[in-house]
């Protein structure tokens, strides 16, 4: 890494550290219903929405009502999006007269956007109309992100509240998330991106004359990209406007926009740790989680950066010393691509600015591992925090036993119910990956859609299900996902991977809220200090490693050994 590379990386961390506190504190205020500087402008809109929806702000819900409202809302969203995709050809803003989605693809896509996965078995510019992109995808980018955040907030309330069944009102939390947090930031971000050359129009695709005489004319897709790009990163959605996602020059034209996009992806998941700290009454608790996440992120980046700059010995043997540039954009370089790759897989974003399929085996292993550990390294907006908290509950439980006490976290006793729910939250995605990837390798049509046989093909399938079950959405590519098998099984993976943890987390929140608070004593294990943070990291890494070591051994590890062996 040269000085420029270091600057890029350190600047990212510095910017993040600088903004985590103010944004985190702001979000805590929003969720606690306090007045913020944005109130004069937004409060009337908020109240209008409540009036239209006949929502009484003061009506708190217990966990079942909260989960019910959330599931109902998501179901309606999913159905609406699917209807839109199936009738795309009848709807306006379709200058290219793109046809309707086939139903399996529509189902996969609708589920994908509602679950904040944004796995795309379609190419944006060749399949989706402007109406679909703006009224469908972009809207869902907002609400699916908001859904994740409401769950995280409900869980925090579960820890904070005492002897009550009530977790807050889902509709109020949803409205506030979108209105006070997602909309303002994405407006600013969209304007910035547009100023840097990200396009924003509803024009028909342009045709460019061929450069070479006798060559074919090129079609250049257009569209309202900037508005979708901002929330795509901010809401850790990751569904690209174009098939090439953030590698496309209209989505991500310059190193500066690249930096901004990476930053936007991390912004909310990182700040939520501070929100957690503020609401829990001890910001050190939030910083502890933040540091655990940052350390894991840095470690993964180090591996990826090392693997990519070492490249393939077969190529560097030829005197090419640039590292592995295959599948990477020259304008971003190694570090710009690697940072993006690490951040997008660490959070459950899934936007890409480089081909993950072309990463070196160990580089691919680094990104795959970030997904397989359950998307807790900052993770998706909201989902990263709640999954991390579920990991913390398990870590607290085992360490609590080790010091001879009924474990407690943030003054709440961890008992059978919390363990059940944490396990469901943490392990569901892993179970889905194991079962579905095994199944995929037994189905001939699934095997034939791989473009690479052997260890790399295995990595592709593993990555695909890891990405879907963990609601990441990035793809190793190299795998044709638009076949009935992947469309349907993928939809199932995304649904299970999203809603089983969501319901489990809400159930845990309900159970925690009803408990009384136990004041800490010398016998209580402090969870805001280095030993616990290290233990938490260890638990995450060990659970992930034990679950996927055999599969990884037959995938990236075997591939790496084959590569270094010169095969």
């Amino acid at each position: 890494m040269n000085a420029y590379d270091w600057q890029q990386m350190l600047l990212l961390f510095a910017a993040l550290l600088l903004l985590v506190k103010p944004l985190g504190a702001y979000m805590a205020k929003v969720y606690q219903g306090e007045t913020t500087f944005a109130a004069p402008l937004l409060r009337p809109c908020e109240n209008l929405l409540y009036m239209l929806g006949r929502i009484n702000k003061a009506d708190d819900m217990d966990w079942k009502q909260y989960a019910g409202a959330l599931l109902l809302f998501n179901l309606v969203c999913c159905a609406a999006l699917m209807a839109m995709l199936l009738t795309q050809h009848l709807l306006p803003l379709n200058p290219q007269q793109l046809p309707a989605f086939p139903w399996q693809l529509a189902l996969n896509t609708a589920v994908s956007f509602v679950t904040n996965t944004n796995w795309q078995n379609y190419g944006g510019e060749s399949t989706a109309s402007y109406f679909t992109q703006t009224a469908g995808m972009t809207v869902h980018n907002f609400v699916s992100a908001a859904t994740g955040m409401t769950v995280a907030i409900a869980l925090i309330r579960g820890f904070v509240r005492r002897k009550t069944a009530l977790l807050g009102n889902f509709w109020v939390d949803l409205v506030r998330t979108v209105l006070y947090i997602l909309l303002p930031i994405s407006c600013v971000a969209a304007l910035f991106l547009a100023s840097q050359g990200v396009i924003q129009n509803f024009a028909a695709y342009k045709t460019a004359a061929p450069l070479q005489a006798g060559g074919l004319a090129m079609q250049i897709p257009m569209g309202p990209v900037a508005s979708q790009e901002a929330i795509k990163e901010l809401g850790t959605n990751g569904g690209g406007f174009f098939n090439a996602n953030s590698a496309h020059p209209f989505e991500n034209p310059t190193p500066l926009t690249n930096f901004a996009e990476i930053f936007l992806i991390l912004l909310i998941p990182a700040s939520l740790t501070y929100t957690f700290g503020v609401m829990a009454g001890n910001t050190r608790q939030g910083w502890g989680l933040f540091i655990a996440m940052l350390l894991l992120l840095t470690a993964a980046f180090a591996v990826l950066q090392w693997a990519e700059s070492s490249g393939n010995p077969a190529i560097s043997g030829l005197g090419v010393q640039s590292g592995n540039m295959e599948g990477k954009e020259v304008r971003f370089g190694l570090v710009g691509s690697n940072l993006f790759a690490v951040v997008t897989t660490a959070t459950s974003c899934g936007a890409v600015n480089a081909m993950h399929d072309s990463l070196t085996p160990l580089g691919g292993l680094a990104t795959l591992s970030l997904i397989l550990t359950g998307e807790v390294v900052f993770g998706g907006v909201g989902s990263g925090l709640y999954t991390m908290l579920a990991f913390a509950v398990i870590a607290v439980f085992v360490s609590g036993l080790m010091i001879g006490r009924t474990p407690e976290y943030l003054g709440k006793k961890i008992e059978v119910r919390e363990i059940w729910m944490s396990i469901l939250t943490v392990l569901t995605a892993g179970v889905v990956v194991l079962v579905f990837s095994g199944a995929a390798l037994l189905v001939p049509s699934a095997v034939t859609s791989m473009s690479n046989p052997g260890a790399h093909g295995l990595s592709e399938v593993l990555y695909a299900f890891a990405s879907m079950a963990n609601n990441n959405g990035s793809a190793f590519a190299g795998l044709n996902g638009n076949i009935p098998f992947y469309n349907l099984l993928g939809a199932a993976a995304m649904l299970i991977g999203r809603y089983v943890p969501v319901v489990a987390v809400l159930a845990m929140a309900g159970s925690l809220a009803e408990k009384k608070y136990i004041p800490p004593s010398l016998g209580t294990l402090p969870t805001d200090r280095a030993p616990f943070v290290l233990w938490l990291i260890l638990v995450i890494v060990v659970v992930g490693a034990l679950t996927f070591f055999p599969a990884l051994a037959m995938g990236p590890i075997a591939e790496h050994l084959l590569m270094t062996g010169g095969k």
Partner: protein
Amino acid sequence: MAKHPQSSPSAFDGQLLRGALADSFKKLDPRSLWRNPVMFAVEIASAVTLFTFLQSLVGAAAEPVWFTGSVSLCLWATVLFAAFAEALAEGRGKARAASLRKSRTNIMAKRLAAPAFGAEYTLVEANQLRKGDHILVETNDLVAGDGEVVAGAALVNESAVTGESAPVIRESGGDRSAVTGGTTVIANAVVVRITTDPGETFLDRMIALIEGAKRRKTPNEVALEVLLIALTLVFFLVCVNISPLSVFSVKAISHGQPVSLTILAALFVCLAPTTIAALLPAIGIAGMNRLFQKNVIALSGRAIEAAGDVNVMLLDKTGTITLGNREAAALIPVGGHTERDLAAAALTASITDETPEGRSIVLLAEKHYGLTPQPLPPDAVSIGFNAETRLSGVDLAGRRYRKGAADSVVAFVKQQGGKIPKNLDQLVNGIAHAGSTPLVVCRDAEILGVVNLKDIVKPGIQERFAQLRSIGIKTVMITGDNPLTAAAIAAEAQVDDFLAHARPEDKLNMIREYQEQGYMVAMTGDGTNDAPALAQADVAVAMNTGTQPAREAANIIDLDSNPTKLLDIVEIGKQILMTRGNLTTFSIANDVAKYFAIIPASLASIYPQLEALNIMHLASPHSAILSAVIFNAVIIPLLIPLALKGAKYRPMPAEKLLMFNLLIYGVGGMIVPFIGIKAIDSVIGLFI
């Protein structure tokens, strides 16, 4: 008092071992094993390998016969070792229960027609007695059931229950009215009202508890089991997943063998947290037994677990924090007398005083003033303490030596026309305010000085409280003394708080208040008036000498009636949790090494390059897998002693303790199997 600690059979007593071995085969029955789901899954995996072994005998399996056979054998051994650990823990209790049961059989009771001496009685068998019946128990009769003395008083030998040979007095009314079935009256007779139905008596409950028959899983145990089951399920899926992945790999690169069923079963058993799952039941049972060896009966496992969580302890001053008796600590002369003068007079006044206070004065005079008590001449008259004068002393050589409470001595002196020194009042009050009792000494009409009788804080109690403080337990002293005295003693004993002028309802309120703030409260008690507070406390220890209501309200009974036992109970409660936590961490940490042994070995035919992961340089794929399986089985019996004794508890702050245990069981748990598997592999290498 003669102590007969419960005989604690050694863990590896020959007879126990044989019994446990026989029992462990019975426990292999799937109908009983399913109660331990992880081991049940291991049994199924073992059955699978038995099947592949039979297949290999007819040449239909992927692996050689010797390999399948040995793996199967090891897997079965794993299940057997787990059953053995549980059987061994139970066996230790059973031996004790059998001796208890003897004292229960064939007791005949004299059922009275009316609850009074002299009423007619009929002889009935003990098991026909019901709640509310009255029985007559005479000298050398066994008490037929739990009850309360309603008339009379008797000397009772309770050694059958407590192991304590010194007989105790049981009498109607007051706090010593409870009698336990199975004990023997050795003098006098009492009328007892039966308070429990047969089958529910203290003895019955004790036997059930000790045998582990009625042992219900505690909340923490259930939570841990949930975690273990989830991990087992995940590891099962990991193994299932390997199959299609390896089939695919073989097809894709067209060489090698898919991973065989035998190896998948072996891998599953190695990965599943068998070590902790095998020892989990034994840890709980052994914890109960360890308590029992300390003469403490926990009426539920929950109570012991709660003991580990206690963060406030209410302790009675007398007997727990201070020795029951006060002791002379200093002599303060008045009115120009010398200390030595005073010492000599105090010695004389106390020479016939056999109370502990009196003896302590004699001792002080000897030790500090070099005086030797002279035998009294025959004409000396010893004046015992009497309620009227409230003085005691000796008339010697025409002089009257007296000691007593200030007002009594002042009255005695005034009566003889003596003068009262001016500073006496101030002195006496000063001593009282410092938490001690002043005793004034006079010779005829002359007041010589004051003896400072101190409440003696038990030696070493400060250290224990400091220990408790260091693990986050707050101590509260409960006393009937006035606040000033209480404060002085509290300061000396270094308790964190005290409750003076304590009435029973004050205790109850205090417990409620602490609980309201989220604390777990432990207390000890023995009187009927303690019962409400005991019922409210999270951990309630009743003295065995206590009343029936107190014992019913409690969830732990201390057979020795030693209030400091609470500290031991807390320690054992913590030990049980720690043993579970540490072995869980150890069990999971082990998996890392097992992966490094098994994965390169099982995939060797597909990807020989994975040999790079064989960092232990195990000889061959087969010996690698076999070594892992053997290690996994053998570690269980090796850890049985730890499970039975419990992890050593070190009082230190939580964070330090965690780091310490993580170092031993976490880091150690990663390293030990690398060494163990390598060693086993080297031995196997000698044979193949």
